[in-house]
C-alpha cells in the first residue's frame, strides 16, 4: 500500500470511529456550523465531541503546521481527508473567518510570534474573528477606506467606522484595514491591523437585513488604543505598515476561495433533492414525472451547472497542487458559486409557491426557505460583488485592456 492509500485507510477508520452520526448530515450551513469563540456554546453534545476529536488530531485546521495547532497535512493528504469526510457527509468540525481568512494570511505574512499568538487560538476554536474591511464610503472600491490610524509611539490610535461587519457583535477580535498615511496613493497608505473587540472605544450596532435577521453590524472606532507590543514585538500589525493592501489582497483570494467552495445548489438550507421536493410539492403526471416540464428543465440545468462547478473546484485545486497556482481563477469560482447559490434558493422558492412565501407570526423564521433565499442575495455582494469578480477575470485572467 502506498503512503497515501495507507493514509486514506487510517483516515477512514478514524472518521468512522470519531465522527458522531449526528454530524454526518451533509454540508454545514451558517445555522448549524461550529463557529467557536469566547461566547460559543455547542449546539449539541455530538457537535462538541466531533470538535474535540478533530482538535486532538489537528483536524480543525488540517493543513496548518503542527506547531500552530494543525496536522501539517500535505495537499494530497488534505484532499483525501476532504474526500473521506464528504464520503460520509461529515460536517467540518470548526469553521470561521479565522480558519478561512485570517489564518492563511498570517501563515503568509505573519511573524512567528504572531502565528504563535493567534493561530493556535483559532485552531482551538477559542477566538472568533470578524473582518473589518468595508466602510460606508469604501465598498467595491475598498482601497478608498478612511478609518484613521495614528502612530502614538507605544500604541496605535484608531478612529472611524466599518460597516457590514459580519458577526461583529459576537466576535472576539477583528482584523482591520486602516489608513496610516493619508497622503500616499490610496493603495500605499493602508495597514492591516489586529484588534481585540473588547478594547475601549469599540461599539457595534447590528443591522437588520431583508431576511429579517441581523448577521452583520456597523462597527465604530472612537479613540481606540491598540498596543503595539505585547512584550517586545509589534504584534498588532501584519506585514509592514502602509503595506496592508498586499495582505488584504492575499486574504481576499482565500475568502473567495472559501466562498467558491460551498457546493452551491445543495449547501443552502432547504430540501436537498430539488427534483424530489418539487415532485412532492407540485405532484406528478400520468407517467410519474414532476408535473411541470419547464421546472424539470430548470432544476436539471441547475443540477448540471452545480455538478460542473464542483468538479471545477476539484480540478482547479488539483491544478494548483500540481504547481499552477489558482490565482485570479478564484474569482471564477466565487462568481459561479454565488450565482448558483442564488439560483438554488430561487428555485426552492418557486417550487414552494405561496407556501414558501408564508412567514411565521414573529416574522421570517430563522433557517426557513424564505430566510435563506433572502440572505443568499448577499452572496453576489459580499467578498467582492459579482461585477467586481467579472472585472478581475477580465483584467487578470483574460488580460483585456483597461479603458
Amino acid at each position, binding site marked *: 500500500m502506498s503512503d497515501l492509500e495507507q493514509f486514506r485507510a487510517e483516515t477512514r477508520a478514524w472518521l468512522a470511529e470519531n465522527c458522531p452520526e449526528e454530524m454526518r448530515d451533509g454540508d454545514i450551513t451558517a445555522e448549524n456550523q461550529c463557529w467557536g469563540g469566547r461566547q460559543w456554546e455547542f449546539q449539541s453534545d455530538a457537535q462538541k465531541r466531533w470538535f474535540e476529536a478533530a482538535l486532538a488530531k489537528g483536524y480543525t485546521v488540517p493543513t496548518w503546521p503542527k506547531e500552530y495547532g494543525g496536522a501539517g497535512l500535505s495537499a494530497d493528504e488534505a484532499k483525501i481527508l476532504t474526500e473521506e469526510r464528504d464520503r460520509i457527509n461529515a460536517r467540518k468540525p470548526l469553521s470561521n473567518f479565522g480558519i478561512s481568512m485570517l489564518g492563511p494570511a498570517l501563515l503568509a505574512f505573519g511573524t512567528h510570534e504572531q502565528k504563535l499568538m493567534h493561530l493556535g487560538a483559532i485552531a482551538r476554536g477559542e477566538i472568533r474573528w470578524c473582518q473589518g474591511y468595508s466602510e460606508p464610503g469604501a465598498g467595491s472600491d475598498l482601497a478608498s477606506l478612511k478609518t484613521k490610524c495614528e502612530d502614538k509611539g507605544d500604541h496605535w490610535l484608531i478612529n472611524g467606522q466599518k460597516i457590514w461587519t459580519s458577526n461583529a457583535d459576537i466576535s472576539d477580535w477583528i482584523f482591520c484595514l486602516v489608513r496610516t498615511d493619508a497622503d500616499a496613493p490610496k493603495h500605499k497608505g493602508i495597514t492591516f491591523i489586529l484588534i481585540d473587540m473588547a478594547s475601549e472605544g469599540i461599539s457595534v450596532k447590528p443591522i437588520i437585513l431583508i431576511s429579517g435577521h441581523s448577521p452583520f453590524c456597523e462597527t465604530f472606532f472612537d479613540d481606540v488604543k491598540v498596543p503595539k507590543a505585547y512584550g517586545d514585538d509589534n504584534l498588532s500589525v501584519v506585514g509592514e505598515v502602509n503595506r496592508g493592501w498586499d495582505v488584504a489582497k492575499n486574504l481576499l483570494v482565500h475568502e473567495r476561495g472559501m466562498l467558491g467552495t460551498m457546493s452551491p445548489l445543495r449547501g443552502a438550507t432547504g430540501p436537498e433533492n430539488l427534483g424530489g421536493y418539487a*415532485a412532492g410539492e407540485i405532484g406528478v403526471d400520468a407517467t410519474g414525472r414532476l408535473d411541470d416540464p419547464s421546472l*424539470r*428543465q430548470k432544476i436539471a440545468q441547475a443540477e448540471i*451547472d452545480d455538478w460542473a462547478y464542483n468538479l*471545477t473546484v476539484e*480540478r482547479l485545486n488539483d491544478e494548483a497542487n500540481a504547481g499552477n497556482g489558482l490565482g485570479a481563477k478564484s474569482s471564477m469560482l466565487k*462568481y459561479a458559486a454565488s450565482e448558483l447559490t442564488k439560483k438554488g434558493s430561487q428555485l426552492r422558492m418557486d417550487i414552494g409557491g405561496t407556501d414558501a412565501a408564508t412567514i411565521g407570526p414573529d416574522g421570517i423564521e430563522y433557517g426557513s426557505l424564505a430566510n435563506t433565499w433572502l440572505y443568499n442575495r448577499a452572496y453576489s455582494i459580499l467578498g467582492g460583488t459579482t461585477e467586481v469578480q467579472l472585472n478581475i477575470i477580465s483584467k487578470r485572467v483574460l488580460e483585456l*485592456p483597461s*479603458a
Partner: protein
Amino acid sequence: MSLILTEEQEMLQDAANGFLTENAPVAAFREVRDSKNPDGFCRDLWKEMADMGWAGIIVDEEFGGSEFGYVGAGVLAEQMGRNLTASPFFSTSVLGATAVQRYGTAKQKEQHLGSICDGSTLFALAVDEGPRHHPEHIEFAATPHGNGYKLSGAKTFVADGHVADKLIIAARTSGEANDPSGITLFLVDADAEEIDRTHTPMIDSRNAANIKVDGLEVTGDDILGEVDKGYEALEGILSAGRAVLGAEMSGSSQQAFAITTDYLKEREQFGQKIGSFQGLQHRAAHLATEIEMTKSAVLKSLQLLDDDFESASATCSMAKAKSGMTAQLSTQEAIQMHGGIGVTDEYDVGLYFKRVHVAQQMFGDAGFHADRLAKRSGY
C-alpha cells in the same frame, strides 16, 4: 484520481496541437468544403492520423491500438474542435471502435479492430430516424428470415454514412417503436445492394447520409451484442460519443473564445480597444468561467469512461449538456463581439458557430440531456 491530465496525456495533447495546427487547420477544412470534396475529408490526412495511432486511440494494444482510452480520444477531439478538423475519427475511432471493442465477439474484434487502427475501414452508426435525437424510437425493422433476419427501414443523419465501409444499425427485433427493449444492433457492409445512401450536406460542411435499407438479409454473425438488448450497447456507444463530442465542443468553445479575446485586444472604436468596454468584458468573463466549468465536466466524463464504463452514462449526458450550452454561447458571442466581420464567410468564427450547432444536435442537445437527467433522478 486527479482531475488533470497525466504527463502522457499532456504529451499527446501537445503532439495533437502541433500536428493539427500545422496540417489540418481551419484553412484545410475550408479547402475541403470549397473544393466540394465528395468524401468531406482528406484521405491523406486520415492516413497520417492513423499512422500516429489516433485511429486506434481507444483500441487495446493487443489489437493494434494505442490504448490511450477515452481521455486520449477526448484530448484529440478537443484539438480537432479547436481546428475544426474534419475526419472520420469520431464515427470510426470513437463510435465504431467502442461498438466493436466493448460489444463485439472475439471474432468481430479480430476482424475489425485492426482495420480501424490502420485507418483502412470506416464505420458509421445509424440510430436516429427523425430530425431530433431519440434513440429509443426505433422502427427500423429486423424481421426473422431463415436462420437470420431481413433488415428494412430508414435512418437519418448518419454521420459519415456516405463514406463508411461498415454500418452499425440499430434495428427493432421486437416490441414497439419507443420501447428500449427489443432493439438489436447489426454490423453490416455499407455497400450492399439493398442499402441506398444519400449524402445529406450539412450546415457544418461535415458529412452525413440518409440511409434506406430494403430487405437486406443478415445472419446471426452480423449481430453486435445481444438480440433485443441492443439498447444497452447503444447507450454505451452513445455515452462515449457524447463525451467525445463534448470534448470537441469544448475545444471549439475555447478556440472561438481565443479568437474573440484577441480581437477585443486589437479592434478599436471610440478611440479605444473594444475590449476595454465593460459591456463586453463582463460577457467575456462569464464565458471564460463557463469554459472552465465545461473543461472539468468533459474531463470527468472521459475519466469515468476509462474507469468504470458501465456507470458513465449520466455523467456523459451532463458533460454533453454543459459543453453544448457553453459552445453555443461561445460561438454566438464570438460572432456578436466581432460586429460585422463576424457574420462574414471569410472569417472563421461563423464556421465554429455552424459546427457547434450540428454537434449540439448530434446525440441530444442540452435540453434533451437535462430531461434525461431529470427522468433518471425521478422527476
